[in-house]
């Protein structure tokens, strides 16, 4: 039997430029998410940065069923690593590809 992980992907926009490739920024985001979701819920959701599309857009991967609590947690985060910022969830999907296509459409429509 093939074990397949059931993941969901979230396209997120931040209000200020972020570099989530750096360890510090990713840890800061993890800390803030754990603060609002609770450590156990954050562990179950297993949220990770899957891709950074630009300095303001990125894709988070998470386990299925935790989209609602992760979206709420992102809404409440207003500060990351001593920098004022806000997060807006644009779209949820089962594949990274469809979110990248959605991002390309947004980028071209200006």
């Amino acid at each position, binding site marked *: 039997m093939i074990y397949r992980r059931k993941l969901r992907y979230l396209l997120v926009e931040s209000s*200020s430029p972020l570099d989530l490739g750096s360890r510090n920024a990713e840890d800061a985001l993890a800390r803030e998410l754990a603060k609002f979701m609770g450590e156990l819920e954050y562990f179950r959701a297993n949220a990770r940065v899957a891709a950074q599309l630009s300095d303001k857009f990125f894709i988070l991967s998470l386990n299925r069923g935790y989209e609602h609590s992760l*979206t709420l947690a992102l*809404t409440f985060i207003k500060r990351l690593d001593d920098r004022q910022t806000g997060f*807006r969830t*644009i779209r949820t999907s089962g594949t990274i590809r469809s979110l990248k296509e959605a991002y390309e459409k947004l980028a071209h429509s*200006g």
Partner: protein
Amino acid sequence: MAYFDLVAVPKEMAGEAAKRLGFRRIFCLGSDVELLEDMAQQPGRMKRIVAGSSAEALSRGIRRSDAVAALATERSLNGKELELLREMGKPLLIPLAQVTCAGEVERGRALRRAKGAVREAMMHKAPLAIASMAGSVDCMMSAQQMLGIAKLLGMSDRVAERALGALGEAL
């Protein structure tokens, strides 16, 4: 279903973000609608959202012809005001940025206050509207996020969707 938001940021910023965030349109305070605290002011051409510091002032404000909604502030509305809103068909506007952008200490209080306002309005069958009323770009939210916060405050799926579209009907 079409969703609408109301913000206090520059109109150009709101306009270009509307489609991306899942809204048909984002209204701006000051250019599309005004906040009215002094009920003695004469009715003007612009539509107004009333925010009264006392029950008497708010009741007077709700009856104005240019008033489209009443803002839920620190003072909780009593049954008479909510029934008046129901009779006039004007919604109680819950500002969500006051909850999401509150500091650590005030957040709990803001959540309880907003939840209480929603519960009282639903008990008195007064119409509800939700908007971010974001004062800065950091506090703006997508439609998906606002629906999540509305459900956190006690609204059902249907009530939350109707509340997010209510501003469009009013304005």
